[in-house]
């Protein structure tokens, strides 16, 4: 895990040194999309071969849905407080 974070920050540094190279930037976006496609395909393969997941998809889906609803409601609560306290007066309304 630390290795992954190290790689991320190493990349940030390399990116900072290459700042403004528009051509590389465009290439990177495409490469990232391809890497994401491939990785999700690989993960799909792992998942499809994993009977534990396939047989429990309804439970996993339920957990995912409930967690998301919790996260979204918490976010709405916090951001409404932030909006009322710090942003509303500044927008002349």
């Amino acid at each position, binding site marked *: *895990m*630390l290795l*992954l*974070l190290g*790689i*991320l*920050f190493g*990349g*940030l540094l*390399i*990116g*900072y*040194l*290459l*700042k*403004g*190279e528009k051509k590389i*930037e465009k290439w990177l976006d495409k490469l*990232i999309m391809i*890497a*994401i*496609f491939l*990785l*999700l395909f*690989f*993960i*799909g*393969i*792992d*998942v*499809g*071969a*994993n009977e534990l*997941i*396939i047989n*429990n998809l309804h439970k*996993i889906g339920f*957990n*995912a*849905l*409930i*967690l*998301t*609803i*919790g*996260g*979204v409601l*918490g*976010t*709405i*609560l*916090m*951001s*409404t407080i*932030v*909006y*009322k306290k*710090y*942003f509303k007066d500044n*927008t002349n309304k």
Partner: protein
Amino acid sequence: MKGSLIIIGFFIAGVLSAYFKIIPSEIIELDFSYYALMFLMLLVGIATGINSKTWETLKKAKFTILLVPLSAIIGTCIGVSIISLVLPTISLKDSLAVGSGFGYYSLSSILISNIKGDILGVTALLSNIIREIFTLLFTPLIAKYFGKIAPIAVGGATSMDTTLPIITKYVGAEFAIISIFSGTVLTITVPIFVTFFLSL
């Protein structure tokens, strides 16, 4: 939205090809995805660093603007923590790791699958896809009843790209830069938070 559909398509293609045994099991046992993940992390790092907007927004960052992504982080963590208390099948730190995807489902699910396993990885994939779809569908309602910051925070990491058009439409163009800022900050924090919660 089209990008999301393609990504989900690749995932489903993988699932089906393994489920119907189109792909030989020897290939499944090779751990391609971890090396591919290291490569992806490097690319994401470079892409974030090379983008001059990243450093500009960091310079401009005032405390009040930082409150927008902060409200998404704190709100999400509080929300999923409460939910994890009533869900017996998922632990608190796993719930927090899923929540800290902030809608960035591709990276968060890839990370979680590799570090923690496919079950939690699929939970993260579904949960964060649902968060993005939820933002796309409910931004008009959320903006109307909870103010202009809420849709940006709910959009999480997606508020800088996939959900930016709909958010800007309903909260006004003057909030677009805040939306991009918040999405950028959250995008950068996703790999950090996810690995942090899973290492607890």
